[in-house]
């Protein structure tokens, strides 16, 4: 932790505390994220002004100004609600997540990264060493001495610190207690707006406060529920890859056409956007209500409808899924029961 992380400054804190004590305080914080979640929030467009009216936005580093030091100086629970997007990738992210947890009444895991690890969670298939080695030895990298970033570096003028790259990527709820989850990569803006309105209503006492652990801004069922494609009983005699078929039947369920679509296992709420444009659901809204392990559910479903009884025939069909780990845990590996590969875990333990 760099010393700059904890400057003791009372003034701004006092100010921010005094500032509109009436309004509930909102913090929006992005951990290891792509920024898409913030863009999705901005994409509620003119409503953003209503949000600004309803809340005193004390922290939204990506859009407005705000100070970590202010947060530090706040009383515990002073922030009414904090939206955290992004996953836990470095020791510093973890530290700030814990700080915000302390300072906030409600913490929301916002988007796929925070709630299930998202695509970057696939990093848990490899050890952190493999990841660094790969990044700093690509074919265009000029690195004869095999230099790697180090968390403490003695520069001629002084010491430079880098946050430490954790052995495994973690989701927010693996680091702090989470009150609500808003799924999606990114969450659909209309869903974000709906969720925010619900929260505002609850805070004004004009609506019920969702029970702890609720998933906001999403449906109770899975994507098929919102998918316009016609569905019949499933019998899969072969899996195809999207580039192998010039045009899929626009009317019929993609999975029935052999395209591994994650719709059946993926929480509804997006409006089935991808199947609507002849692209398979890739699962960004995560698991359905109450599901323990997304990948296990989808594996079970796929295997159940494979049309074969002889082991070799079954294998023949399953060969069509060239990347099981990616197919079933594309977004949810970090939040799955195993959370990563043996290699990643062992590496984590060595450190």
């Amino acid at each position, binding site marked *: 932790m760099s010393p700059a992380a904890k400057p003791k400054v009372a003034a701004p804190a006092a100010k921010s505390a005094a500032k509109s004590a009436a309004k509930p305080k909102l913090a929006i914080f992005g951990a290891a994220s792509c920024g898409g979640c913030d863009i999705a929030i901005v994409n509620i467009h003119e409503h953003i002004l209503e949000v600004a009216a309803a809340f005193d936005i004390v922290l939204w580093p990506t859009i407005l100004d705000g100070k970590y030091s202010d947060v530090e100086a706040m009383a515990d629970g002073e922030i009414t609600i904090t939206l955290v997007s992004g996953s836990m990738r470095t020791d510093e992210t973890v530290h700030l997540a814990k700080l915000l947890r302390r300072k906030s009444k409600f913490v929301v895991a916002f988007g796929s990264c925070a709630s299930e690890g998202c695509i970057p969670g696939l990093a848990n298939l490899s050890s952190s060493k493999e990841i660094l080695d790969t990044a700093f030895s690509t074919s265009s990298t000029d690195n004869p001495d095999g230099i790697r970033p180090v968390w403490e570096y003695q520069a001629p003028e002084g010491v430079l610190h880098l946050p430490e790259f954790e052995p495994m990527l973690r989701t927010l709820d693996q680091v702090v*207690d989470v009150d609500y989850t808003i799924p999606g990569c990114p969450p659909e803006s209309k869903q974000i707006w709906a969720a925010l309105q619900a929260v505002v209503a609850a805070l004004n006492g004009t609506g019920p406060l969702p029970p*702890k*652990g609720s998933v906001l801004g999403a449906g*109770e*069922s*899975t*994507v*098929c*529920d919102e998918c316009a494609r016609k*569905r*019949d*009983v*499933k*019998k899969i005699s072969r899996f195809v890859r999207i580039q192998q078929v010039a045009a899929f039947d626009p009317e019929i369920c993609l*999975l029935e056409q052999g395209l591994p679509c994650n*719709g*059946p*296992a993926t929480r*509804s709420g997006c409006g089935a956007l991808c199947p609507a444009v002849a692209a398979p659901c890739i699962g960004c809204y995560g*698991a*359905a*209500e*109450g*599901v*323990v392990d997304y990948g296990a*559910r*989808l594996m*079970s*479903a796929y295997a*159940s*409808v494979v049309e074969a009884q002889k082991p070799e025939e079954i294998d023949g069909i399953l060969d069509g899924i060239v990347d099981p780990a990616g197919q079933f845990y594309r977004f949810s590996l970090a939040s799955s029961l195993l959370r990563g590969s043996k290699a990643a875990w062992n590496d984590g333990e060595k450190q």
Partner: protein
Amino acid sequence: MTERIGVYVCHCGSNIAGVVDVAEVARWAAENLRDRGVVIARDYKFMCSSAGQQLVTDDIKEYDLNRIVVAACSPHLHERTFRTATARGGLNPYLCELVSIREQDSWVHTNKAAATAKAKALLAGGVERVRRNEPMEPIKVDINPATLVVGGGIAGISATLEIADAGFKVYLVEKDPSIGGHMAQFDKTFPTLDCAACILTPRMVAAGTHPNVELLTWSEVEKVEGYVGNFTVTVRKKARYVNEDLCNGCGVCQEKCPWKVPDDVFEVGMGRRKAIYTPFDQAVPRIPVIDRPNCAYFKNGTCKACEKFCDANAIDFTQEDQILTLQVGNIIIATGYDLFDARRIPQYGYGRLPNVFTSLEFERLCSAAGPTNGNIVLRDGKTAPKTIGIVHCVGSRDKNYNAYCSAICCMQSLKFAHLVMERTGAEVTNFYIDIRTPGKGYEEFYERVLEEGGHFVRGKVADITDAARLPGEEGKLIVQVEDTLTGKQRRIPLDMVVLSAGLQPRQNAKDAAKLFGISCSFDGWAIEKHPKLDPVATMTEGVFVAGCVSGPKDIPASVAQGAAAAARVLGMIQQKQMNLEPIKATVHAEHCSGCRICNTMCPYNAISFIEAEGVSSVNAAMCQGCGTCVAACPAGAISGSGFSDEQVLAQIEGLLRLGADGEPLRRTAYPATHHEAIEEAVRA
């Protein structure tokens, strides 16, 4: 509700206590599972004793328990016992869990420490599981008093009459034109030697004339839907081309029909019948059938002799197959067996050597009503054989064909030997592997045949040939056999050889099993619910089996099974309602996306898709509770009572609380609980 769990560890005398330190297990549970809701843990000598059960009942009241775990023997033995005890204590019986520390621990392990550690782990698993148990109520369904019996052999007839006599409706479906089955083809029955026809015919008639019996011969079951108490059965009634209401069975049509056809079914190819026929004289019903492929009218539009001579105007060439829909509450399957095809053993020469006969052919030879009017003669129809060999176990007890014993062939062969000696002067030699006579009067009958002078050669016949090598073999059938008593190879010249062919499942047995939703073995014999304790029930509620459909049986056994099946059915009819185990799958519509993955999961068609609502749903009464759809649902929208995800996942956590050495497997006991704890902490 906070769980208050009572744990009971059974010594089972020394059966468990001899290997597992039951006191230590109970102590451990009391101390270390307290946070899991265990308020009392006892060990006791015999939990299944009334005193043991009383412990449970009393503690429920005294300690205000709301969950029970009994660590004892296999749930298959005493689950009901302790559920009942739990119910007596005022709890829902399904809030009781059994943990098997006998069959799965003390009886199979020797290392006491390891067995004790395992017992603790198994117990922890049971405790975790019972925490997630839900109170359940058995599902009640009404029983339609009508019954379907499939197969008009002796077993089916017996079942039919039992139920009909008790005053309930029976539909008896038979694929042939007449009921009677194989027994009708026999001459005499062992060991009493009464004439098959004489004892069978009255029962056939009784069935045919019984007011409660609706006979559906020349008919086949095509579809079975529904569930116990409420089956809907589709039956195809094949066209007879004879109006059953008009026909009086006078038989003139058969007389006048100019077309003779070899009778491959009843006379097994040895006799001939007309193109319009009843299989045999005592057929029930006596209404003939027109053999369409062989009928001149159907072939070339002329003849109609039968129609001309029928005073009742019963002949109806325009008749078509009828599709009937029957509503029944129970089904008894008595579809019998096929005879092993002796052609499959080429070295025995059946079909090639004219004077090699099958047992069924020989039955017809002996039958006064048969093709030779009961004269035992060679294929030429006149020559009386002087020497006859009877080969046992043809196609049975032979890995190349059927590994099992066909049960009836020994006695049948002895019967043949007796009949030959009784009716001809011929000399009889039995070729056998073992003589099996388990049955009342069977061994005595064997003695009798021995006394009568029947020869017995112990050995498996290797070859039957007409190629004479030694003097005296010319023109004879030579049976090549190793006499295992003398250890000598023997060549025995004979005039006639009878192959005592074994019994095997109907060639369409597996399709039939699918049709009725029951399972059958590799061979194709129907599988009983329990081979000893529930031999006429199947795994499918409301579907019963009787006779040879579940394996080779002789007539007494088949009759007994017919009656037994009837008794089971009557029992259900009497209850008017029955309870189904509440282990069922349920679709939660709000979570169901209508992806239809589950639709093909159910072999009992209990899952249907409701187009209007775009969701799938499970019919609880049809659901057999296997849970396959529960595991298949990608949305987790199907729950399985009794074996819910929560119960199984919790049990896994419990089972893995301790390592093989009995030490905690993880630093902290229960991650899940731990999270619960933290949530509380944060709320507080």
